[in-house]
């Protein structure tokens, strides 16, 4: 019974989690390019190893295209020595500016939220200790 209840609570939070991931994907894509140019699949792999952000893989490409149109990224087709050409993305100056700003806002935002949910976390810890 308890198990069932817990399950349904998790299901309820799922769409919320999906929205949260979608909302931060843009920031994640920009952050992935901080250390240098990458092509789409490398960005996806980077996000897979550093986070669990990626939903359907195909959605990263329209996002990259939009960021490019907004002037935050540039792209270039690079012919590999062996194999096929790949489209590499890199941050523009305003892209660097943007991700720096986003990172600062994010750190503040998450620290505030952390303080907000601290009582919830504390209580959870106490409950588990009692068990």
């Amino acid at each position, binding site marked *: 019974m308890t198990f069932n209840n817990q399950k349904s609570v998790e299901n309820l939070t799922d769409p919320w989690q999906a929205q949260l991931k979608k909302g931060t994907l843009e920031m994640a894509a920009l952050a992935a390019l901080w250390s240098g140019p990458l092509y789409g699949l490398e960005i996806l792999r980077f996000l897979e190893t550093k986070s669990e952000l990626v939903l359907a893989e195909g959605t990263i490409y329209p996002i990259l295209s939009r960021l490019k149109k907004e002037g935050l990224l540039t792209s270039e087709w690079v012919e590999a020595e062996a194999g*096929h050409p790949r489209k590499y993305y890199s941050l523009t100056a305003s892209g660097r500016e943007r991700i720096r700003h986003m990172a600062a806002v994010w750190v503040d935002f998450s620290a505030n939220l952390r303080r907000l949910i601290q009582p919830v976390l504390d209580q959870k810890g106490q409950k588990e200790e009692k068990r």
Partner: protein
Amino acid sequence: MSVLGDREVQLYLESLRNALKGLPTDEQDDILQEIGAHIRDRAESSDFSLPAVLRALGKPEEIANQYREGAILDHARASISPVRLLHALWIFARRGLWGVFALLFAVFGYLASTGLIITALVKLAFPAHVGLWLGANHFLLGFTSSPPPYATEKLGAWYTPVAGVTGFLLLSLTILGSRSLLGHMHQWRNGTFRSEGPVPVSSIGNQQ
């Protein structure tokens, strides 16, 4: 060309191209080449089977919609065409309540402003039938075939300039307001705004 010759991959790219229609051809080619490169890389690195690679990418229509929405919004935000603005707002209206409000705002703005501008012109041809009538229980603005007997017309010849200028201002406000709403919703698009969206990869994998 090993993987891209596969029938399933060809069908996938074919539906993607069909779904991308309306975008400039060079952009379509670019997108297809990029997605093709993705499929090749994923398949050749052998961490996924080919059907799994395509499932993880998501439906071609869903990918294409995201590209097309972006293009429609970009055009609309720089446009004064009611068709483009209303089309872009319509997309958001299908996604959530704020979009519906924005669409209603724009529809009301366009109807009221064009109504004012048209009656301002009609007043010149039929001065007795167009005006602003106010009475104890009457309010009538615009065109009427039979002017209400218990109300007096207040504007007279001033109707044309007053309605014309008001209509023009309202039209400008509608265009600027719609563009600005589109801009805001564009930013929220990947956040709280999209009620439907891509399916998590984990659940795609579970389907089979």
